[in-house]
């Protein structure tokens, strides 16, 4: 996701607790650096905190944070992204691999409808050293039909200005490409910029349209989806993760681990966990909680089972719902303006 997504994830905790005098939320910014995240988190643990809601930059490196927290009896929960540590109490996330998989399934339906047997695809990924980026790519490439040809994989720092020139070069080399898959919002915006520069920027209704889609919506990208230039984005409940895990954390701190949902449960918004429908800057960001009903399962990765996973639902943004007020990009635009 881009800066807006990260901003929303952090700020959502503050928005949600702004009317709670007994809650103090500190947001730590890893600045895309696993070691900085570890240092900051360990400093916070040393200063004394009641719990940590962790969106790790790196699945393995962040295990150090969990280890340090566990040594001090500080509970840690994951949201958005997984830490490979058995000491995580619970994680609320959609799953990066699952995001790519959903994109692959929807793309498969699109090419079947268009009768494309061997479509050519460019994949555009952000910082590939990040586990998130890898899983988002493999979720897509491992679930598209065999006939799909990945003609180019480009990597950028995930910003539009860095990804656009490379995407443009890839288009130059593959002018007959059928689709561009972008694994974050910045790469998606870069893909649209490149298509514009190459005079290949057409709405879906135009037969010259190059399919463009990916993971994460965003304030601007949602508008492009609405206008028909970007086919779809697999969006996560980014602004719901923090309130959701805060509610889980409070349950744990009040009543212990048995109060948390157990593997095999189905967790329904408003019944098992209730994110209050608060008003923030005149809007209600949590009015429609599309994260659930969510199945409780076990998070598995690298041939290991790690922790109980509250498997949140995604929301595919299409032209029909691109202006929906419950999407994080639109929440951000309305609150931050």
């Amino acid at each position, binding site marked *: 996701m*881009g*800066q*807006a997504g990260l*901003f929303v994830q952090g700020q959502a905790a503050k928005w949600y607790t702004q009317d709670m005098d007994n809650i103090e939320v500190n947001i730590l910014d890893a600045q895309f650096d696993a070691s900085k995240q570890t240092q900051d988190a360990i400093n916070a643990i040393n200063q004394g905190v009641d719990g940590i809601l962790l969106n790790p930059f790196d699945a393995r490196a962040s295990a150090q944070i969990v280890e340090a927290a566990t040594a001090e009896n500080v509970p840690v929960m994951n949201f958005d992204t997984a830490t490979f540590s058995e000491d995580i109490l619970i994680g609320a996330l959609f799953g990066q691999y699952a995001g790519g998989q959903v994109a692959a399934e929807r793309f498969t339906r699109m090419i079947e409808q268009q009768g494309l047997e061997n479509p050519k695809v460019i994949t555009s*990924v952000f910082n*590939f050293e990040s586990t998130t980026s890898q899983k988002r790519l493999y979720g897509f490439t491992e679930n598209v039909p065999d006939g799909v040809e990945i*003609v*180019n*994989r*480009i*990597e950028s*720092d995930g*910003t*539009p*200005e*860095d990804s*656009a*020139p*490379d995407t*443009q*070069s*890839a288009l*130059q*080399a593959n002018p007959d490409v059928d689709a561009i898959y972008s694994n974050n919002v*910045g790469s998606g*915006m870069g893909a649209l*910029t490149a298509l*514009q*520069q190459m005079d290949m920027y057409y709405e879906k209704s135009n037969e010259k349209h190059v399919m463009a889609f990916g993971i994460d919506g965003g*304030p*601007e990208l949602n508008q492009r989806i609405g206008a028909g230039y970007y086919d779809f984005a697999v969006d996560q409940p980014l602004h719901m993760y923090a309130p959701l895990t805060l509610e889980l954390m409070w349950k744990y701190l009040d009543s212990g681990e048995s109060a948390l949902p157990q593997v095999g449960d189905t967790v329904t918004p408003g019944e098992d966990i209730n994110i209050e429908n608060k008003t923030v800057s005149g809007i209600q960001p949590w009015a429609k909680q599309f994260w659930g009903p969510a199945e409780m399962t076990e998070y598995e990765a690298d041939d290991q089972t790690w922790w109980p996973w509250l498997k949140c639902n995604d929301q595919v943004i299409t032209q029909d719902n691109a202006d929906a007020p419950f999407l994080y990009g639109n929440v*951000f*635009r309305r609150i*931050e*303006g």
Partner: protein
Amino acid sequence: MSTLSDLNSVVSDLQGDRTRMMLLVLDNLIWPILLIAFVFFSLLLPQIFTQYQNVEFLLYTSAGLGAIALAEGICLISGNFDLSVGSVAGFSSMFAALFLTEWFPGTPGIVGVLVLLAVGGGIGFLNGFFIAEFDVNPFLQTLSTFIIFEGGILVLSSRSVYGLPESYLWLGGGDVSIGGLLPQSVPVAVFFMLGLFVAVWFMLTKTRFGRSVYAVGGDEESAAEAGIDTSRVVIVVFVLSGMLSATGGLLLTGFNNGATPTLGTSQLFPAFTAAVIGGISLFGGRGNVLNALGGVLLLSTIAAGLVMLNIDPQIVQAINGIVLFSAILMYTSVQRVRERLLADL
């Protein structure tokens, strides 16, 4: 006797000409290297790389980086580092974008350009003032500015700003057609970038101030003894660097059709690399900014060629590092050869 003397004189002149020719080649080595790189990729990508559209694209995508490389280059020539070029580009772009869309909507784009240049120049002035007047190490001064203004971008806005006036975006995103001379319209940014390089080259080589910049970069104490106001030169150099960085931000904004919170921030190392492989000395006092343009084009050519060849992105990053390392090795060797040739003259 006189015939023998004339012959010696002719031989000496010929040797001098040959040495001067070799010096010319050595000082402008980036252009044959760029040519070789272009031919190399053209052979591997015969249908694509030499297309008009690709050449235009290479020039266009070099424009923003080109201005930022100029900002770095002029500082290096003056014997200073400027680590803040990327964040100044991003901060001034975001500041001007918000000025035009939120603080004073409806303001003409040209006012936004002036605001952008004022912000860039202002930050440059701060850098230059502290370095020249308080003797702060340029590396540390600009490192702090880099951090402050990279964070400052997010303080201004964590979202991208679109919907900017067409007149503001024209320089970086507009096209001009040259009545039948070229097959299609050409981005304004291409001409602007070329003009900018020529203008800065002219200022540095043909004006008194420019010669002062080289003198200060070569030996600040000697320059001061020769009557040059070295503090003033350093401050003006950093103001220019800030304004050029901001101009880079303007060109990138036009390319993206909007200002993003990450704009420009990843441009420091490519700009630095371009200046160095263009032959601008890390120790100051030497280098031709026109060759930094060659460095920018070489980086763009390699980046585009590797992507088109579908080389693994991890390898691309490593290759960029190898290019810089090779350039440093080459220029270190060239410097030795150059000194020998100069001794022969």
